[in-house]
């Protein structure tokens, strides 16, 4: 496997379930048992009602591009070689937005409102990263 030059996530006790899910090809997000709100990124507290009654639930892994930009310049190693790439905010079916890259398509094809689905890329033996691609 080639060396992963892009920055890698740091996994903590608070976020391990999410990253373990990615390794298994599952997008797992959080839903509060008290107020029923979904939240993203995962955290140990429901940011809405401040309880700790949080469930991990499977996302449909589908959503729509909320907005995006085609990045032509980024000096960070790994991304510098990758331009132009699409940085996007995707709104999942569950109603929460997450940052991602839209991959497996021509950057110029990306549109706001486009239907996308999650796809996973193995960065190394410990970490797999979720991305999104157009729904086929």
């Amino acid at each position, binding site marked *: 496997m080639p060396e992963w030059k892009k920055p890698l996530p740091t996994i903590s006790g608070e976020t391990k379930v999410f990253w373990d899910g990615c390794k298994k090809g599952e997008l797992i997000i959080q839903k509060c048992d008290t107020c029923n709100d979904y939240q993203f990124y995962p955290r140990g507290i429901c940011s809405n009602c401040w309880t700790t009654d949080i469930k991990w639930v499977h996302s449909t892994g589908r959503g729509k591009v909320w*907005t995006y930009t085609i990045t032509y310049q980024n000096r960070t190693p790994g991304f510098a070689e990758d331009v132009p790439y699409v940085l996007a905010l995707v709104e999942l079916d569950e109603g929460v937005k997450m940052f991602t890259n839209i991959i497996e398509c021509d950057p110029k094809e990306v549109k706001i409102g486009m239907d996308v689905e999650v796809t996973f890329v193995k960065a190394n033996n410990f970490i797999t990263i979720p991305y999104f691609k157009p729904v086929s």
Partner: protein
Amino acid sequence: MVNLNHGAAIVGIHEHQTRYAPDKSELQIQGESVIKALEDAGLTKNDVEGLFTASSTIRNSGLNLADYLDMYPKYVDNTTVGGGSFEFHLSHALTAIAAGRIKCAVITYSSLAKSGGISVGTGGVARFGHPRLDPSPDSFEEIYGLTTVGLYAMIARRHMELFGTTSEQLAEVAVAMRRHAGLNPEAQFRDPITVSDVVNSRVISDPLHLPDCCVITDGGGAVVIASPELAKDCKQTPVWILGVGEALAHQGAGKRDLMYIAAKQSHGPAFEMAGVKHSDIDMAMVYDSFTITVIETLEDLGFCEKGEGGQFVSNGRIQLGGELPLNTDGGGLSSNHPGMRGIFLLLEATRQLRHEFEGTERQVPNCNIALCHGTGGALGSRHSGGTVILGRN
């Protein structure tokens, strides 16, 4: 609430002229600026009781600055919420003075962003080295190649989609700032540009072109704030603080509509405290990290309806001679942007309210009330907004 309107005044200012200072230290630029600002006020080191500063590069910035200048402030504030930190400092200094804790405060800032070769907008997470990402939020964001420009470009893209805003309308902001920079001998870029120059230039992060992005310079400055009693003894016409408001905006756990920025929350309290209306504002200093920042800020400050910012900035309305002259020093887009720019908003607003440019094209005629709005962080992820309303009388 205690009425803070006229609770303190800006009595001294200094803008460091440098745009490139590889031989100076950041603390040195701050020190030089503080000394000159106190001279401007007719005050001395011994008058300063409050010290306010922010930095993205100096560790323990307030502590190190007090050490460097051998000061023993009894009120210290390092609030660091991005480029607009200094509007927050002004708000806090007002509160501390009105509460009687201190009589005089200094706000100062400097940066060597240019000579340090910091790619503020396009460096990505590696712009300050290659750090281990925090578990959150960094690990859910920086792995996708965020840049500062990109986080504003995403908001510009959605603004275009929802409201039909055009690249030409964004360019109008850059053109206006460049015209104003032409009147400022210290500005980094002074040659006039056209809308067509902007839209035909290199795209940095679609839809933002290079001239849609602020310049990178070195620089710094200082502001001296005094109680009404102390202000009476100062050399300059006091510039009164009429109203302040602070706000933060963030992802809201993935649920906030990011098209509304912190200005939406911060401007109400500021206008209410000041007891003024939008039509009373003679000029405004609106943080212009990117052209889209100005359009979004004008909308959420309430100068126009949501979605109408593109039209609002067109036809010269935000240029000198227009209905709402903006960033008459040339702004971050053309004059200077040393990492954070919030302090320069206060400096130029003060110069306008002092009528320092009387008899020249740069002066806003009969300038009595000015608004500053600092935005720090990034519109696409999380940011701060500080509104300040200043008055001559």
